[in-house]
């Protein structure tokens, strides 16, 4: 797909404000994966719009934080205590978590009758979603890094997946869009000289799916994705759906 800079610029302006509707959001996600990392103009635009979005937060009047907030934030930094979310925060965050995870990993909460177990499920989902949001933020940061390396992974249909990393960092991301729901899970594998290692399965967050890769990608020869029905498969059990060579 060829990208028009003006169109991408307009999408990015709406994207940083979180105001895109479904169709434009999907298009923006694709642009962020397929075009922006390689386009200096659009990458600069994205950075500039992000600064505007942050600075707009200065427009409202400042309000002295209440003592209850002061105390709550101080508790966050006490290492002996684990921060907790209570009341509305748990309910709202849990709803967001379930919405975000609906699809591949959906767990129908109404099947979980026990209140304590239900709370544990919600808490787990919340933790997973927060992790994925941190991953996506870090991945987008890598995507705009001047030394970034992007390895496109070719696959069937409209599937778009890339391995994204900054050479020298011991981490990277496999991130994709337009992936059809799998039978089981999409599992990422790295290989070299007959040895394989997996960072795990692709996790869905909104319109994209990603997994953090805790390794130096350039220490491997190939990256690939298989569809696995069983969890914790030690080696790929089927032919790769997508594969790419990693050059150093």
């Amino acid at each position, binding site marked *: 797909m060829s990208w028009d800079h003006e169109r991408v*610029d*307009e999408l990015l*302006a*709406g994207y*940083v*404000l*979180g*105001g*895109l*509707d479904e169709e*434009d959001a999907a298009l923006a996600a694709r642009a962020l994966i397929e075009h922006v990392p390689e386009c200096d103009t659009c990458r600069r*635009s994205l*950075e*500039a*719009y*992000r*600064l*505007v*979005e*942050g*600075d*707009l*937060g*200065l*427009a*409202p*009047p*400042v*309000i*002295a*934080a*209440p003592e*209850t*907030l*002061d105390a*709550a*934030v*101080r508790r*966050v*930094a*006490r*290492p002996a205590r684990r*921060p907790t*979310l209570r*009341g*509305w*925060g748990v309910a*709202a*965050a849990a*709803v*967001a978590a379930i919405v975000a995870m609906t699809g591949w990993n959906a767990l129908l909460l109404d099947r979980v009758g026990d209140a304590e177990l239900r709370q544990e499920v919600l808490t787990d989902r919340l933790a997973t979603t927060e992790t994925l949001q*941190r991953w996506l*933020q*870090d991945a987008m*940061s890598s995507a*705009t*890094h001047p030394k970034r390396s992007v390895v496109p992974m070719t696959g069937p249909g409209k599937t778009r997946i890339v391995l994204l990393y900054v050479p020298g960092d011991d981490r990277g991301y496999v991130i994709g869009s337009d992936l059809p729901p799998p039978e089981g899970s999409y599992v990422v594998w790295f290989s070299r000289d007959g040895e394989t290692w997996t960072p795990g399965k692709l996790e869905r967050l909104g319109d994209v799916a990603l997994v953090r890769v805790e390794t130096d990608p350039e220490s491997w020869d190939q990256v690939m994705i298989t569809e696995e029905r069983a969890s914790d498969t030690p080696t790929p059990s089927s032919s790769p759906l997508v594969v790419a060579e990693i050059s150093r």
Partner: protein
Amino acid sequence: MAETDLELLGRVATRDAAAFEELYRRYAAAAYGLAVRVLRQPAIAQEIVQEAFATVWNAPEAFDPARGPFRTFLLSLVHHRAVDAVRREERLRERERRANPPPVPDEDVMDVVVEEVDLADRRRQVREAMHELSPAQRETLELMYFRGWSHARIARETGVPIGTVKSRIWAAMRRLREALA
């Protein structure tokens, strides 16, 4: 001489609670003001600000100094969370929308808050830049930024064609980008 935000964040990365509290002291009023402006419910705004600062404490490496100052990172974090919350809240309360939302704290409260000089300067620049937008651009931008409305919802609620809404948002963002560069 006061430590920079970056220096404080370096200490936060080593689990220095005092550095974390100093960052909170610097930005709590701005973050809380933004959250209240979006959510219009002080109790929920407190939760959002607490979560944002918890993110700073738990993952200080999420802030990349190459991509702008800490204030924009933090306020962006608060804004995203506040908009997500207000959208969730709207869905949850769709059937029983309150006729009279709780009053937003009066702007007089700002008199009791003493800001860092550079933060106050930047605030003035942002407000001036907003003032330079056309009324239509400013109103459309505020509906998206502060109320969390999408292009389609703004079009639906205001009766303005969606193409015009998109153009206004884009034009507003471009003008702000130039004014605040």
